[in-house]
């Protein structure tokens, strides 16, 4: 799969909002969980 340009990659064929909205929120949620667990581990 070759995208040609960064713009094309970010646009995701017009579905950029949906695709990146999915990946970004997933990444944030996982980062939040890792942070919470690390904090809990340090506090306990």
């Amino acid at each position, binding site marked *: *799969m070759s*995208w040609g340009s960064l713009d094309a*990659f970010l646009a*995701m*064929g*017009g*579905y950029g*909002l*949906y*695709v990146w*909205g*999915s*990946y970004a*929120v*997933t990444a944030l*949620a*996982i980062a939040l*969980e*890792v942070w*919470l*667990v*690390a904090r*809990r*581990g340090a*506090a*306990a």
Partner: protein
Amino acid sequence: MREPGDDAGAGSTVWWLRLASPQAFFPLAGRMIPWFTWLAAASGAAGLYVAFFVAPTDAQQGEAYRIIFIHVPAAWMSMFLYVVMAGWAGLGLVLNTRLSGMMASALAPTGALFSFIALWTGALWGKPTWGTWWVWDARLTSELILLFLYLGFIALKAAIPDPVRSDRAGAILALLGVVNVPIIYFSVQWWNTLHQGASVSLTRAPSMAAAMLAGMLLMAFAAWMYSIAVSLARVRAIIRSREREMAWLRAQRAAA
């Protein structure tokens, strides 16, 4: 001499039963975390590479389908973790082992996280393909109930200060909720839903391109490894706080 709170596991001559005691499991979990973390990172990176640079554009859905690489693994994980959580909870109910309830508690937030991710990515996928963020159909509704079961389990356990009673009440709720998992899984067959049927099943060839399937399986593997790593880290924190007055942890703190 046996300490108060030592369960059968600690003194057992069967090695895997000995691991069922928090005291023995605590250092073992600590040693396993880095391995599962690296496996999760490596398979996640490989999965993302396949998802965005190898898997072709879908003929019907264009690039919107790329949400599948998180949506399906997250949905699988949310159901699987619930079964494992209920299994640990049930084991604790039957065998009265201290570690079981802690394991169930450690899995619940990660299960809730994956349910949320499945619902969130589902909404973002539904909008461009179905024209709506949400419908009250069987698959979506039963997955939402799964999220509420996880949250209810966490809230119930948090509301009961005594750990033994808390574990017991949580176990009963977890076991009652298990009934929801097959409902989610088979909902697309039992009811006429907007949600599509399974693209991957054990009984027939997958209805998708090999690269798409490979990306999805890599991401599913990453989700597994991540879940194990983060649950082990959480169970260690739970063991630390629940057993803080026990001799073995006091000795460890004194040595540190």
